[in-house]
């Protein structure tokens, strides 16, 4: 979805209190990442996938909060962070990977797609990367 569509449909909106939500989002990202690792340890790869996605989602959302916006759509989160981050290559690379995880997570959650160890390991690495970048910028 395009930035203008996201804004016009109220899926992204400016919020003066957005920045205050940032620490909570970082804490959620860390909590979900721990849960993802625990699920890998017991070979619950679908649950690990979902938790890793949630972690990455909260990390990516800190970039939106930092720009003064809140979201009501995961797809628009990607669009909005792309829009507000400009040419930042680290953020752009992270978003490209996160956007794929977003679609994959949808298939796991709603279509019953199975997850194997290799994919779960990737998701956790991506969630780590997202949290590390968010902490580096805002932690």
């Amino acid at each position, binding site marked *: 979805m395009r930035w203008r569509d996201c804004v016009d449909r109220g899926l992204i909106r400016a919020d003066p209190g957005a920045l205050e939500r940032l620490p909570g989002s970082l804490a959620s990202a860390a909590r979900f990442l721990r849960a993802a690792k625990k699920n890998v340890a017991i070979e619950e790869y679908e649950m690990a996938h979902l938790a890793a996605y949630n972690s990455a989602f909260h990390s990516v959302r800190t970039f939106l909060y930092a720009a003064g916006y809140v979201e009501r759509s995961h797809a628009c989160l*990607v669009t909005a962070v792309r829009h507000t981050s400009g040419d930042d290559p680290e953020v752009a690379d992270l978003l*490209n*990977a996160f*956007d*794929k*995880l*977003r*679609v*994959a997570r949808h*298939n796991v959650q709603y*279509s019953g*797609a199975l997850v194997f160890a*290799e*994919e779960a390991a*990737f*998701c956790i690495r*991506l969630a780590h990367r997202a949290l590390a970048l968010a902490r580096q910028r805002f932690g």
Partner: protein
Amino acid sequence: MLREFEKFVGFRVLAWFLTHPTGEIHINKLAREIGVSPGSVKAYADAFERDGLLTATRLGTARLLSLDNDSFAARELKRAYTVLLLARAGIEELAPESIAVAVYGSTAAGTFDEQSDIDILIIGDESQVAHGRVPALEAETGREVQVTVVPYYRWERMKEEGDPFAASVLQNHMLVTGVRL
């Protein structure tokens, strides 16, 4: 849209060259192939030659026309025409549930010829690919289609590791559906 374009004689003349990038043909023969009068073919061929899209060579008294593959405009038109053919043949339905579908290689670069494959990358799972749609793509374009399926987590790893295939696709591709590569 393509159907509307095809009503125009000039487009039909140009389309022959765009789908036969290395072909050389005489005006009368081209007129017979596309069912247009030689006079119309000549008028459009002259115009396209003036625009630098076609080149003419003499073989005895015959004037043979071919696409100027060195012309950037010809390259872009080849690419655009192939996109329209692929769209008409339903490329967007090849793997609609996948994460991304992209065309790469010589088709994306506009440097292909009649023998070149159409290379399609699908980021997703094999189970998401409607392989039964491939023959329609091949029939519409007259070229062989090669489909490569890569799960997103492997694709991302390939990117991170600087895999040459991933690097070349990232540098030159046309995104058909889905998220950015």
